[in-house]
């Protein structure tokens, strides 16, 4: 058997793949956080709950309406996005003029309520959600066995991350968005409806979380608690990457996922901790984060 650093190459690559999949979710979620934070200056604590919400929308659609994975892949982000826009309109928009910490606290309360509701009806145990038949099974790559769905997760997340990046950096809407980040008053004076832009942005960020949720449903079980611990790791990812750049959030997400996978190979006990340790080191060496601009 081929060995790498004294470890069978299959095990090595297997953990690397797990890391890559975790990294895909870190990337999508930290991207959503960065998009929201960029314009709204709000850290969306409810991001984990919205991710869980997305997974549950998929589960509920299948259980009660018999709607399968592919439509759910569109519907779940849509539902979560619309929910996000309603929240932004009714509540978050009232908090822009005060200390951004209140936005964090509000979304923290929101996350508790969403999770509490799902926990009340579905308990803490996970609900199974199977991958669609088209993505079932696996392929033998010669050096390792790759379940098709896991490969699809990586591809889909790359597409979504790239798409969001293009939307923000290369389109007209994205240029409005970036302009409004720099100077909302001036952009509004030019006739751009900035409040609408804010609502859409929060909707987009929430939808990204919802998409990550439905994508995660067949990989992990659908459980009310699936988002609450994940979101804290994503916060650490965001601290490492710095929220200055969209690309930074994406790259850091994948990098830390891979780092976690590697740690699982060599020192499994520390795999939960490695992201936080990296965060601490980055804070010592480069407090602004790897891609951050502010001091």
């Amino acid at each position, binding site marked *: 058997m081929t060995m790498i650093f004294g470890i069978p190459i299959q095990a090595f690559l297997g953990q690397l793949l797990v890391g890559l999949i975790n990294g895909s979710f870190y990337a999508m979620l930290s991207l959503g956080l960065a998009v929201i934070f960029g314009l709204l200056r709000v850290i969306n604590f409810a991001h984990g709950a919205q991710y869980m919400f997305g997974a549950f929308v998929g589960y509920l659609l299948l259980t009660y309406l018999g709607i399968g994975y592919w439509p759910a892949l569109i519907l779940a982000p849509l539902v979560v996005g619309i929910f996000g826009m309603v929240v932004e309109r009714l509540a978050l928009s009232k908090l822009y003029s005060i200390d951004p910490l209140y936005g964090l*606290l509000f979304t923290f309360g929101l996350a*508790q309520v969403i999770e509490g509701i799902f926990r009340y009806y579905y308990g803490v145990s996970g609900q199974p959600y199977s991958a669609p038949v088209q993505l079932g099974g696996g392929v033998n790559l010669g050096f390792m066995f790759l379940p098709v769905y896991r490969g699809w997760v990586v591809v889909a997340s790359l597409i979504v991350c790239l798409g969001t990046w293009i939307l923000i950096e290369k389109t007209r809407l994205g240029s409005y968005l970036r302009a409004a980040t720099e100077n909302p008053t001036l952009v509004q004076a030019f006739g751009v409806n900035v409040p609408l832009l804010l609502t859409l942005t929060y909707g987009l960020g929430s939808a990204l979380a919802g998409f990550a949720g439905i994508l995660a449903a067949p990989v992990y079980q659908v459980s009310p608690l699936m988002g609450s611990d994940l979101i804290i790791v994503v916060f650490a990812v965001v601290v490492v990457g710095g929220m200055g750049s969209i690309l930074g959030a994406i790259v850091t997400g994948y990098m830390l996922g891979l780092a976690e996978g590697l740690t699982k190979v060599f020192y499994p006990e520390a795999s939960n901790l490695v992201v936080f340790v990296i*965060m601490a080191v980055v804070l010592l060496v480069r407090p602004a984060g790897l891609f951050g601009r502010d001091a």
Partner: protein
Amino acid sequence: MAETTLQEARATGSARLEWALVAIGIAALIAAPFFFYPVFLMKMLCFALFACAFNLLLGYTGLLSFGHATFFGGAAYFCAHAVKVWGWPPEAGILLGTAGAAVLGLVMGFFAIRRQGIYFAMITLALAQMFYFFCVQAPFTRGEDGIQGVPRGHLFGLLDLSQPHNIYYTVLGIFLIGVFAIWRIVNSPFGMILKSIRENESRAISLGYSVANYKLAAFVMSATLAGLAGATKALVFQFATLTDVTWQMSGEVILMTLLGGIGTMVGPIVGAGLVVTLQNTLATSGFPVTIATGLIFMVCVLVFRRGIVGEIYARLLTSVGTGKKE
């Protein structure tokens, strides 16, 4: 001139009123175990001290820590371990827990003060989660079971703490010492500098204060007192579990402070009392606690940011009309 004396008279008047209220409050706490279930009261006192310690950081220094469960729960583990496994007397256990929390505070503060505002909150949260994972895996915490059956022992070898009234008055004493310490810190020249950092950090720097050191000192003090509360709680309930180190616990103490009134002395105590009462009531009703606390969180942030006590202060000030405003 006349107006100034009038204001001064009102100031001394309200100061006297405050002292009278404090005296009434202490008297009520001394009498309380004869009317209410002592364990419930002690739970309230522990959380009230925890919230006051947290408020020292948020209310008076302007730093939102999302990781205070580390100090509360960490101290509980240290104290429980020392008392149960090493057979230490309760006072030594509490001291060890408190000292342990201070060390944890020093480490977390060292990293967290490198960033401000929202990042500060996220860093403390992430480091607290790291400590949580440590507690899940470290053998001395006994994982999911926690440290159970911690003996209360005899305080200074004399006072039998297994008697409900003995432990109640011990906890009350610890609570009063802790709150007094916070009151002294807030009303000292050191506390003034903390407030100036809260109000305008750049200006405090330009005046020559080494803001980072002050922030770290405030962080360690807050962590130490939170640890005092946590270690005491371990003796009261005779166990230390993972619940106390979760981020939900960090959120709970924020809620207590926010509901009572950030930056007021009494607010966190009131908030802690209300939240603990609410939790106890809901625990038997079947309605999920997290939904209730989450809703209170949202309502507080949207319409009630001064909190109960802060709101009362604001009303009093406007109705008296002395022009003294925040």
